[in-house]
């Protein structure tokens, strides 16, 4: 297909050296991490774990040194991420800041924002949430209504954001507000802001428990909340363009196929050394996909490293990766037919119990399947 270009990526020797370092680090630090936390993978918040990664220079590792980064390559970062995710490391605390909020500030933020905020991220001390969706704006993001009204020295914000993972723990929220016009103006009049969740009056964060019983989501209410002008990211009205860029970061990483990897690994263990023919076939199909998606993910990273813009490939990767990770609990069910017990179960059961329930959310974050397929169709020239 002329529109799609995935080519085998090559990893430089320094990336493979880093892999060894990361594996040594994980051998030390993962011993105490319980299976339930591993199953939660990049949505599990563990500030001490993030802090340890920060000490190694493994958060914001591609960023300039003057902001606390390590100026390493995208391919080295890729290796770090895939190693962390495959091990089920609890990297949720810094994940959003490292993946999208930091890069956003680096690209569109002011010098002051970079200097004050980025170093804390790289130390694993500063966590971010994403303030995009609203109660009536999910997939139709351009219809956001929460208003930031210009006043002396800043903006007065009224409205609410929903599905903000970790807002009750995060330091900052990168939020998309309407600075002019109405929801009917769609992409025009939207602006991004950094909201200090810990030190702003007029903000109320209320939990939304998900069906697994976890408190991850929140609804964040703004009532005459003041956001200083210095916390605006980019120009007024550039919000849509910036959000689109940010979503491309959100869609392209290896977390798009590795969320269920702890269950893949546990399934191999559960099958034992001499599986039945049916189990061997099921596991083999799973691994053929895992290995191929790994190559595709690496290929996307190679394109980023080369300064290309793999938006379409990232969307394809999300479509495939999410489909894969969502299939894993069904395959495990098909092969082993086990109803997992919530208490005193094996590692396999604990992991299966969580991922069976959580996996319906995997295709929602970062844009639903239908939205992503729409992006692919556009890339194929259909719209």
């Amino acid at each position, binding site marked *: 297909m002329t529109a799609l270009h*995935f080519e085998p990526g090559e*990893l430089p020797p320094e990336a493979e050296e880093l892999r060894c370092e990361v594996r040594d680090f994980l051998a030390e630090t993962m011993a105490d991490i319980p299976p339930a936390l591993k199953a939660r993978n990049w949505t599990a918040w563990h500030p001490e774990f993030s802090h340890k990664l920060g000490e190694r220079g493994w958060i914001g590792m591609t960023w300039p040194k003057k902001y606390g980064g390590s100026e390493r390559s995208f391919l080295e970062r890729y290796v770090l991420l895939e190693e962390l995710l495959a091990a089920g490391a609890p990297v949720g605390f810094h994940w959003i800041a490292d993946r999208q909020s930091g890069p956003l500030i680096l690209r569109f933020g002011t010098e002051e924002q970079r200097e004050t905020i980025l170093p804390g991220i790289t130390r694993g001390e500063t966590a971010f949430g994403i303030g995009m969706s609203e109660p009536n704006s999910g997939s139709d993001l351009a219809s956001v209504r929460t208003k930031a009204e210009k006043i002396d020295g800043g903006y007065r914000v009224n409205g609410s954001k929903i599905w903000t993972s970790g807002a009750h723990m995060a330091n900052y929220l990168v939020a998309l507000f309407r600075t002019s016009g109405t929801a009917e103006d769609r992409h025009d009049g939207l602006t991004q802001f950094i909201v200090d969740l810990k030190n702003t009056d007029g903000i109320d964060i209320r939990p939304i428990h998900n069906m697994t019983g976890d408190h991850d989501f929140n609804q964040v209410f703004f009532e005459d909340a003041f956001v200083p002008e210095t916390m605006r990211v980019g120009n007024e009205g550039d919000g849509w363009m910036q959000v689109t860029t940010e979503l491309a970061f959100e869609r392209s990483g290896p977390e798009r196929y590795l969320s269920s990897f702890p269950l893949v690994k546990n399934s191999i263990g559960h099958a034992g050394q001499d599986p039945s023919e049916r189990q*061997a076939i099921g596991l083999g199909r799973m691994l053929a996909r895992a290995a*191929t998606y790994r190559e595709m993910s690496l290929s996307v990273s190679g394109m980023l490293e080369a300064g290309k813009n793999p938006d379409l490939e990232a969307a394809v990767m999300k479509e495939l990766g999410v489909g894969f990770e969502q299939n894993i609990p069904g395959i495990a069910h098909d092969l082993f037919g086990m109803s997992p017990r919530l208490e005193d179960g094996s590692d396999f059961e604990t992991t299966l119990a969580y991922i069976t329930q959580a996996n319906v959310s995997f295709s929602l974050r970062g844009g639903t399947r239908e939205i992503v397929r*729409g992006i692919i*169709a556009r890339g194929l020239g*259909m719209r």
Partner: protein
Amino acid sequence: MSELREILGETVTRLFADHCTKERLEQADAGKWPEELWATIVENGLTQALLPEEKGGVGAGWQAAYVILHAAGRYAAPVPLAETLLAGWLLNGAGLDIPDGVLSVVPQQESVILSSSGELQGVVSNVPWADRADYLVGLARKDVGLAVYCAPRSAYEATPNHNIAREPRDLVRFTGIADTELASSEVTSNTMMLYGAMARSGQMAGALERIIEDTLQYTADRTQFGRPIAKFQVIQQNMAMAAAEVAAAVMAAQNAFRAADYGVPDFEAACAKVLAGDAAGVATDICHETHGAIGFTYEHHLHFFTRRLWSWRSEFGAEAEWAEKIGRRAAARGPDALWSDITARQTAST
């Protein structure tokens, strides 16, 4: 992709586009050997891409072979190019002479025996292009180990048969003396199936991309309810799914040929055949559905590719067969080796 492979890609694309016209494909379906196409392929050295210079080849390697096989699949080239490439490669590895002419390979080896007097015995079905080939190459069981053989047309009888793409898949009865050599230690009972599966995954990658491209064009041209059907969301969603599935199969195939340049692609070629077979199921289904009745006619060209995909996905091992091998190996290695095995890519330095 290297510059050399890019140039090669342009050359072979032009060659197949010129020769594999609908008319020629129809003639091949009816049993006519495309002499001009084959002569052009031979003239351009494509049959010898994998052979070293001292054997008259260019030593271009497996990744260049991918470019050739991908293009051959993309144009449904009705010739045993994959088979001739594989046969030459196997003979070269065994130190045997590589004869001129049309070569093909015998996928199965269980029933082929090399007697102590040097005579090949056995009956094998579904042998590609056996009747047309000048030589059949394969592996035979010997009292000790495996032998590579090159059997001239006089050493076997062939009863013509065809797969659903109407490509020759004949019944072979070996009856005579072949040129043979004891297989080297690198050749195992899995070798022919593995490299055959990889070759098919390369052809399938090309055919899969072709049906996506052609179907996309069809959705732009075909108007229903007052607009091109490409504008309907349900068509967009289906095509996005099919294109993603095909992109994965193409990646897996490329990765297998890449690995083959550095070592034995045990895992990678198995993955490639699984992904190609799965993609063939999804993409042929969606592409035919999108074309509607016209795609089911003999007059439309879609079937030249879809019938090949349905044939190729079961040749040299179907998805389940390769998946089982992958699953068994992973289970035997255990969960702790899983991730390090997936990330242990073959590279020039290993």
